[in-house]
């Protein structure tokens, strides 16, 4: 069972690809959003496989719990109707999904087979990278500790920059979408 992480990785990667194709190609916006939920959950599982449980929990809480609910609210508030894809008919869309999934599955199966057959596994971590190793040995509390340490000491500058990026997002959205711009002056 040494290869269990590789097998899990390919399993979740496969589900993720299927879900993301579903997001793009499904006619019904609500179902597209639900496919996005599947995508986020499998992404969280991938974080879990990598040993970052805290990040996985956050992913589920923030994206699935908060953001997706907002998404669904917005979709429900505007009129829900099937998007009319004129070129990609319903059947064509389905064959497309099936075709792409089969393609993805074969590619991933080939990758998995090569991983299982080769002596040395896919070398995701080189001799320089100790980070993944050290993360695996951590408990959930340790995970959060490491994360906050990196966030507030080593990565303090990008962290602060992100806050400015978010501020720009808010201001930009207001400026572009506001009805009566005179009030802003």
């Amino acid at each position: 069972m040494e290869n269990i992480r590789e097998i899990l990785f390919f399993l979740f990667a496969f589900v993720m690809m299927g879900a993301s194709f579903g997001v793009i190609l499904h006619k019904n916006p609500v179902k597209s959003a639900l496919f996005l939920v599947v995508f986020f959950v499998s992404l969280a599982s991938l974080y879990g496989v990598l040993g970052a449980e805290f990040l996985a929990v956050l992913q589920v809480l923030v994206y699935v719990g908060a953001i997706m609910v907002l998404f669904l609210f917005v979709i429900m508030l505007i009129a829900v109707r099937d998007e009319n894809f004129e070129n990609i008919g319903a059947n064509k869309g389905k064959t497309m999904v099936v075709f792409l999934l089969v393609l993805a599955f074969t590619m991933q199966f080939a990758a998995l087979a090569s991983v299982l057959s080769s002596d040395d596994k896919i070398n995701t971590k080189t001799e320089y990278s100790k980070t993944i190793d050290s993360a695996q040995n951590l408990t959930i509390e340790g995970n959060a500790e490491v994360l906050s340490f990196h966030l507030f000491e080593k990565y303090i500058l990008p962290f602060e920059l992100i806050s400015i990026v978010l501020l720009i997002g808010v201001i930009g959205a207001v400026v572009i979408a506001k009805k009566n711009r005179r009030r802003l002056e």
Partner: protein
Amino acid sequence: MNNLFQFTDLIAILPQIILITGALLILFCQIVLPRGRVDAAVFISGVSAILALAISLFGLESSVLESIFGGAASSIKYPGFLDEITRLTKIYAFSGHTFWNPFASIYSFAILCCLTFVILMAPKILKELDLNLSEAYQMMLYVGAGLLFFISANDLMTIFISLELSSLPLFVLAAWDRKSKSSNEAGIKYFLLGVFSAAFFLLGTAFLYGATGTMNLLDISALVNENSKMTSETISMVIGGILLIMVGIGFKVAVFPFHAWVPDVYEGSITIVTALMGSLVKIGAVAVFFKIMLLVAKPFAQYLMPAVVIFSVLSMFYGNYTALLQENIKRMFAFSSIAHAGYMASMFYIPDTSKEGYMIHPETSAALFFYVFGYALTTVLVFGTIAYLEKDKPVTFESLKGLSKTNPISAFLLALSALSFAGIPPMIGFFGKFYILRVLLKSDQVFLALMVTINSLIGIYYYARVLFYTYWDFDKEEGTLKTKAFRSAGSWASGIILSLAVLILGFLSDPIFRQALSASYSFR
């Protein structure tokens, strides 16, 4: 592990801090001031841009500073302060996330110059278009701060976030004219392609991180240059990562296969925003592209050199060929900017044949900087002129007829910048091309030199068309464009300074060139 950060860390990002503080002050003024908010915003943004510009000069090599100002720089006695800052010119701050050295300093200087000129020109135009909101100036300051972080970042994470910080306000500015369909189109196109390119950049980052285990550019540089530590797997991952990052930044530089957004976005946005996009973003993206090539690409020259040559040659030919066919002036300059991106890209990876160890010819950095700086100044000048020229409908070649009679100043400035773009001797554009060709020939890149020469010749045709239409004595007595050139004091000031810079900066190229040369050694 030391504390969060120290005072020196804040010194290293002082220009950025000033710009962001200015932007937040504008936001604050909107809440506090009952009226005159826009005027306050113009004032604050102008002051903070000029202040940041002055501070960015402190990163230059002091010996070169003295050669510019004579003994004046050293005779000013602010006891300790100047020394303190020049001593700190080569610092790596925030645990290696950002640096402040001559490289960052010269490119910051170029960016802040262009930002200041755009801020000086913008108010009158925006007022006439009835789009004069204080948020516009706030967004411009954010763009400047983001690009300053972009070029001084030393960590792939910081580079990515500052890339977002600089592009997000530009998406907003591109869609600034809400009533115009083309502006909306420009905004959404720029947004989608920006997001698309960010995805490429992130994937490349992931590859580099996977191969080396660090995101610090200098650490990556040290690792990849040490052959013993690289296996064949990691080498292919690093090459893939660098290529993906090249694609991501190539969208911002607008080299050939990633150019598709340029004409529509440049044409659709308000012209003063186009000036911002064409100059600032180009400088920042070119600087970061060059920095990454300089630091990481050295051991993989045989794989990356062909990609660079393809980018460069194809952008030159595509940009020039399509620019020949344009009737709309803004679109013509947009396509010619792709050709100019090609000339710049020819500098991205020039091996030094004379020496064994240092693979990039040290003069490439200097030549590239001089070209980019001259190009950006001319771009601000030309789009600023067009912005004051156009009224309600876009400027075409047809409408330029007889412009030298109705509006001699705008005609002169258009002709001046067209000549500079074409590379006619006294203008700054000539010296840029001269330095590029010199470096290309010095390092035996005859093919690229030939391509640059041929394309400069093609370019002369459509730039000369601008002169032809503005100055040729058509039968018509008067031109159709009846607008006055530069209708405000600020735009007059920046127009005069810019045209002087385009005219005479070439003769003063020596100190700039030496400064840029010293910058190319800042990473060693």
